[in-house]
């Protein structure tokens, strides 16, 4: 993997904090995930913080996980991504996705990594 990666997680309430805690019990964090909650910060503030981080790391690829497609966190992530091909947004975040990200981020190419994370997230949904 040639690109350096920055990863963010934006969720409603405390969900993201627990997802990160639980996934880091399962796999060592290769890349730290910066967590933002819409509970503690105004959406504009989150956008400002992440956008300035992105602007300061031009050679990086940036991945933004959000909980709910169509929710306010997803809207915000899409505004951050707007006109920036180095930013990708994945919604519906779950533990298998975060684990997949940590396991594969250093050994896969960027596009393949994004596909793999979404696939693994879907595999984690099962009905018997």
């Amino acid at each position, binding site marked *: 993997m040639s690109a350096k990666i920055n990863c963010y997680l934006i969720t409603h309430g405390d969900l993201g904090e627990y997802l990160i805690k639980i996934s880091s019990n399962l796999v060592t964090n290769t890349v730290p995930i910066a967590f933002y909650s819409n509970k503690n910060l*105004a*959406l504009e503030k989150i956008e400002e913080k992440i956008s300035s981080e992105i602007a300061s790391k031009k050679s990086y690829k940036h991945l933004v996980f959000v909980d709910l497609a169509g929710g306010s966190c997803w809207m915000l992530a899409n505004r951050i991504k707007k006109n920036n091909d180095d930013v990708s947004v994945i919604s519906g975040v779950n533990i298998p996705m975060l684990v997949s990200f940590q396991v594969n981020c250093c050994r896969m190419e960027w596009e393949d990594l994004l596909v793999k994370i979404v696939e693994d997230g879907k595999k984690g949904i099962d009905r018997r």
Partner: protein
Amino acid sequence: MPIQLFRIDDRLIHGQVVIGWVNHLHSKEIILCDDSVWENEWEKELYLSVIPETIKARVLNTDHMVDLLLTDYDLSRTIIVANSPFTIESLIERKIPISEINIGGIHFKEGRNKYLPYLYLSEEEVSSFRRCYEAGVKFSCQDMPENKKIPLEKILNLN
């Protein structure tokens, strides 16, 4: 011209509206009334993209909203969403009779004070609500259908 739900929410269309209120009220249409979203094709597309295909949805600016509210278009299964009391004021100024508004959320931002977990207001917003109230608009705070309706006059001591 009864409107099923006229909502103020600074996050406009999001999960609480599309999942919570639409399902509760069995709404058939969502109208987003916002001048800045209306001017921005990208934002417009983004908001409309989150609405299920079974729900009719559109973005109108305030002028178009006024035009629509002056017709006899059936809004009895329609949710209208605006982002602040200023939009309501501007409708009132144009002689649109509005009786009841749901306040679904105006969230934390610098310069706003907390009134409810989902209601933070600046002094300008409080004044705007006051003017609307004096013009006869009833506001009730209720973020989700299952939560308690709280009259705004109680919170802001508008009486």
